[in-house]
């Protein structure tokens, strides 16, 4: 028995230096192959003037990055901030409330759970067009409902300068909430039921149980979802592109729309790349600090 155990231990110790790299190799490979090469391209584009098909015309140094200090870009950043903060707050609050409702057994729970995630499975392109039928400012379903209920006389313009941002944020919340619900539900399932019983005996029920016991347990999942949602929110493109294309008058022009407009409307691939690189760096920093806590025992 004794020697066998020793061999085993030695093997484990030996593996731990190379093994983790073997485990992460497939994912690293995929990301390197698919995203690595485009990333390199992106970097050199950002220092150059390139043709619409990505051929070098001339090197321009840092001038593409000059745009990052313009008033226009500051406004884009501000709008992106509003989009991210309100979108994420909405998704988390609504997602949390619904997961709490759906966590415990109730008749028809399976059906309700499946129904709640429906928005997530509808491809982005279609979600946007479907909502346009609802929010249309002439004959939209919502305006018709509000008129039928006698709440309004004149159609509301849901995509006008003052309202468009709120409307697209709403669509984003609708589309993203199921993601939070799914993550939350699977995390809640993992909380042992004994824990709740024990907490109840200690007098931690209802809201107190939620804040003191449940939330700390859900924190890792919340943090992870938060980081990934942050990344996705900044890059969200289809929903805004299809509904408002960044308009009216730039009211919904967030970073991803700027990147597209610079590249494909204004044919300025260099500036577009500079914006993309800038965004990546900012998010990497945010991600790194959030992640460092979570990756305890790193390096």
């Amino acid at each position, binding site marked *: 028995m004794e020697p066998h155990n020793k061999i*085993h231990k030695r093997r484990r110790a030996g593996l*731990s*230096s190379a093994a*983790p790299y073997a*485990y992460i190799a*497939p*994912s690293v490979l995929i990301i390197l*192959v*698919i*995203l690595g*090469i*485009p990333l390199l*391209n*992106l970097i050199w584009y950002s220092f150059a003037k390139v043709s619409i098909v*990505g051929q070098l015309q001339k090197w321009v140094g840092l001038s593409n990055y000059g745009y990052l200090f313009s008033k226009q870009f500051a406004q884009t950043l501000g709008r992106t901030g509003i989009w991210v903060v309100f979108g994420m707050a909405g998704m988390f609050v*609504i997602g949390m409330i*619904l997961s709490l409702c759906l966590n415990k057994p*109730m008749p028809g729970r399976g059906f*309700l759970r*499946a129904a*709640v*995630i*429906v928005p997530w*499975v*509808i*491809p*982005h*392109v*279609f979600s946007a*067009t*479907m909502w346009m*039928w*609802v929010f249309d400012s002439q004959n939209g*379903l919502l305006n018709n409902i509000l008129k*039928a209920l006698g709440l309004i006389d004149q159609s509301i313009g849901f995509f006008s300068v003052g309202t468009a941002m709120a409307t697209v944020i709403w669509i984003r919340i609708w589309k993203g909430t199921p*993601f939070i619900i*799914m993550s939350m539900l*699977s995390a809640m*399932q*993992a909380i*042992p*039921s004994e824990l709740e019983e024990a907490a109840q005996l200690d007098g931690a029920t209802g809201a107190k149980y939620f804040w003191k016991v449940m939330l700390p347990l859900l924190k890792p999942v919340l943090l*992870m979802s938060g980081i*990934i949602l942050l*990344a996705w929110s*900044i*890059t969200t*493109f289809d929903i805004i592109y299809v509904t408002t294309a960044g308009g009216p008058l730039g009211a919904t022009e967030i970073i*991803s729309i700027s990147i*597209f407009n610079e*590249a*494909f409307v204004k044919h300025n691939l260099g500036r577009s790349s500079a914006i993309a690189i800038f*965004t*990546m760096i900012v998010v*990497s920093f945010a*991600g790194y600090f959030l*992640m460092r806590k979570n*990756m305890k025992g*790193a*390096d």
Partner: protein
Amino acid sequence: MHGKRKRMLALRYVIVIFWLVISFLPIYAAVTTSLIPYNNLGEPFLLPKYFRWENYVDLFRTTPYLSYLKSSLIYSLGCSILSIIVCVFAAYALSRFRFRGKTVFATAMVAVQIIPQIVIALPLYTMANKVGTYDTYYMVILAMMASAIAYPILLLKGFFDGIPVSIEEAALVDGCNRFTALLRVILPVTLPAIATAFALTFFSGWDAYLYPMILTSSEKLIPLTLGMSRMIDVASKTSWQLIMAGTVLGIIPPIIVYALAQKFLIGGLTAGSDK
């Protein structure tokens, strides 16, 4: 106590159903539109006025809908199954090993999500063309995986963290190696997370639009999203009734997948507590 629980239950129903009503407004609009005759498109509606079920027949007659559906399924299943395999390993490494570059790896994975797909498109196309993987299913699936695996890895890592190392060590003593311990002991306990990750990656595959558009050319490889958006006519009047019919039908398969994944989710829970 009993009355309070009943009231809570009622409240839960009210909240969920209220949300569902709002959620389903666009789907209601889509279903209604899918039944409107082409000539009557654009009329304001509150309640459905037309019931032209033939639109659904037309959908199959005038477009290769079944082929779109098949491609979408292949992309989604490919993306989800391969992603799960890759993610389980990566998440396991992140959770169980200390190694140099761990945080950097995790950060990089999230950071690259920021690269807008639209910017990747051009170099990716050139690369696929050079390597000879242009116009294949796997090129599209690989491309989608690159942006789909980050979240499942982090999600699974969180779950692995929650599993006591002692369970694994017991298995190692029983003669398993790390790999078989992962398969036999850890995976069954993390089924809820795996089911969730499966559903999420499946849906990203179903959502695929830009990558198939850029990386394929034959009609056989065109998924639902692309097929439907090809019917949008910027120059003239679009057949919205067909697009909406296609969309309504296209929502069904992923819902089935979620319903199935959900069973695993509950099954995983009981499997975990049995131990």
